[in-house]
């Protein structure tokens, strides 16, 4: 080539390189932009979800209470046996002193400002402390749902009376109580410590939380050992042949089976064939265990696979038996992974609704279960029941229930992260 062509070649090469570089940079930039957009969308959606839930649910975390002075006369309540008093009369005495009324009908209406179960609150307080008999008992009684809503500003006073769920008279009564300083809005502990109720102001999650706890306990006790044993066998002992391949494929498929199918299975097998009680956390836990099992098997196998083969070789080379290799070396090393996977599997099970609906864990049950065989609801099914209820008070309680559920999920995931870091930090 002549001298003249050389610089041109160099130039073209430089231009080519520059073009390539620009292309590369642009591609890099695009990839990063896609990622950032995706994350923004995800975070945005999550934000909207949380925002709506908090907005809808925060009012359920407080509850309107009315302070009432109940005269406990020995005429109605026998100090020897306080449980058997004429509580209806005690309540109407207390309510009668709140506001003036013209007629017995009006007095009954006034009584409805308080929750329907007022007499039980009074009775429980007297039974707990019988010394008040003959004196006056002052109690903060939850207000009935419509007054709770009125107090929380969920009922617009400007709408015409006909379109409102509270009458002008009721508003007047409530305002008068407020002037007397009898209305308070403390934190709603009942949301956590009460069981379900027909009355929103009394409905709480304790039954659902207990039910979910029992169901998860059963689920864990079954799926964790069975899952680990199955995964260990498949990973460490099973010969690699068509049968184990088939089992592996099936386990992977099971993990993807819609949860409602497990519910049907539970209904057909546990309830109809084994005759276990309906709505029981035991059955719920069994069904959830079926669902969680494939997840635990898969994460355990992955955790076992991640243990470096050199550790196994070292142990075998020392003359450790297969059992010793697994128990002394492989399982301890894979435990962080197994635990994390298990907790995430359990968190999934906690939020699972469909299978529990099929085995009847959406029944209306007003006391927490005393054991795994007693009928109960679970958190997600309780939310489902509330979401289906017409009363205004249940709308906010539905959101509050979801927030509580998400709180538990968050807690479980935090535990998973904590455990993993704790166990992995050792070496």
């Amino acid at each position, binding site marked *: 080539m002549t001298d003249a062509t050389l610089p041109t070649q160099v130039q073209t090469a430089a231009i080519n390189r520059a073009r390539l570089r620009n292309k590369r940079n642009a591609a890099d930039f695009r990839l990063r932009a896609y990622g950032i957009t995706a994350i923004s969308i995800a975070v945005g959606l999550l934000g909207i979800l949380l925002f709506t839930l908090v907005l809808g649910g925060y009012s359920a975390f407080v509850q309107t209470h009315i302070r009432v002075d109940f005269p406990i006369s020995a005429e109605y309540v026998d100090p020897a046996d306080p449980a058997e008093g004429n509580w209806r009369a005690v309540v109407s005495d207390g309510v009668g002193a709140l506001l003036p009324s013209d007629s017995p009908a009006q007095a009954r209406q006034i009584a409805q400002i308080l929750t329907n179960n007022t007499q039980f609150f009074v009775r429980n307080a007297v039974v707990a402390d019988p010394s008040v008999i003959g004196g006056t008992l002052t109690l903060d009684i939850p207000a009935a749902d419509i007054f709770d809503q009125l107090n929380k500003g969920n009922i617009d006073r400007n709408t015409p009376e006909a379109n409102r769920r509270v009458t002008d008279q009721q508003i007047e009564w409530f305002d008068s109580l407020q002037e007397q300083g009898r209305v308070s809005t403390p934190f709603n502990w009942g949301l956590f410590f009460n069981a379900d109720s027909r009355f929103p102001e009394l409905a709480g999650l304790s039954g659902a939380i207990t039910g979910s706890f029992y169901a998860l306990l059963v689920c864990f006790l079954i799926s964790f050992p069975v899952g680990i044993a199955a995964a260990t066998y498949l990973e460490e002992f099973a010969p*690699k042949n068509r049968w184990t391949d088939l089992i592996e494929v099936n386990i992977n498929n099971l993990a993807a089976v819609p949860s409602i199918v497990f519910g049907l299975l539970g209904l057909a097998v546990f309830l109809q064939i084994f005759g276990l009680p309906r709505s029981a956390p035991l059955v719920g836990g069994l069904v959830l265990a079926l669902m969680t099992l494939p997840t635990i098997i898969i994460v355990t196998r992955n955790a076992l696979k991640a243990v470096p083969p050199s550790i196994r070789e*070292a142990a075998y080379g020392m003359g450790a038996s297969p059992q010793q290799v697994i128990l002394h070396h492989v399982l301890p090393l894979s435990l962080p992974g197994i635990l994390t996977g298990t907790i995430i599997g359990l968190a999934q099970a906690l939020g699972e609704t469909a299978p529990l609906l099929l085995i009847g864990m959406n029944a209306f049950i007003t006391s927490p279960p005393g054991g795994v065989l007693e009928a109960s609801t679970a958190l997600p099914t309780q939310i489902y029941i509330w979401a289906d209820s017409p009363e205004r008070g249940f709308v906010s309680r539905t959101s509050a229930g979801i927030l509580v559920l998400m709180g538990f999920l968050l807690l479980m995931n935090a535990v998973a992260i904590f455990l993993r870091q704790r166990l992995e930090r050792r070496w």
Partner: protein
Amino acid sequence: MNAMTENKGSTLVAKPDQVVIPPTVAMKGEDVSVFYGAKQALFGVNLEIERNRVTSLIGPSGCGKSTFLRSLNRMNDTIDICRVTGRITLDGEDIYDKNLDVVELRARVGMVFQKPNPFPKSIFENVAYGPKIHGMVSTKAETEEIVVSSLRKAGLFEEVKDRLNEPGTGLSGGQQQRLCIARAIATKPEVLLMDEPCSALDPIATAIIEELIDELRENFTIVIVTHSMQQAARVSQKTAFFHLGKLIEEGVTEDIFTNPVNKQTQDYIMGRIG
């Protein structure tokens, strides 16, 4: 090429004790063939491993050195597709006998791997593990004694005596390999198999380990796989040359390196194959 032979000449000066004790056979392979599935990796190998000697296995990559070594303590059992035929004996006992306990065999024939692989446990636990699972110790004092003496024999004790409870994985590569040697000799094996124990180490760590091998020979029978002719010449009394799954030549190390009978052996040690 000349430089290499000269170098060898200097390292191959026979030590007086090498010829004094008549060798006895610790392990013996008779017509050993190994298959990985349908693929045959070893073809009818006959080799005697002499007691209190270092035997080195040399040969180009893929010739079956590791395969032979691993069949000596049945580590090949852990590979599903692997099949061994022929006879391998330890003190005259067939190690592939149905009634023989593999666990016990591996306690008697220890192994050190190419890459240092201490357990992710403390230095102490690493060494104590073998004696514990083989029921060689019952008290804490016994365990401690065996740990300390093994670490001493492996030439590691002075370096780690203040941090026996720290993780073994926190040591340097050379220290880790010596820890693995300590771990292997803690079970007091008769034979110690080493598969390229120095290939992951720098020259200084290598020198330490070579020295160690020479000392260990007093108490153990050692089989070592190595890619370094110099190493084979320095540490071993007997050398076996493998090529394409066949044992081509074996004999006193000095003879193999100075006077190989077989053309292939000659080519390999001259650096023409491999």
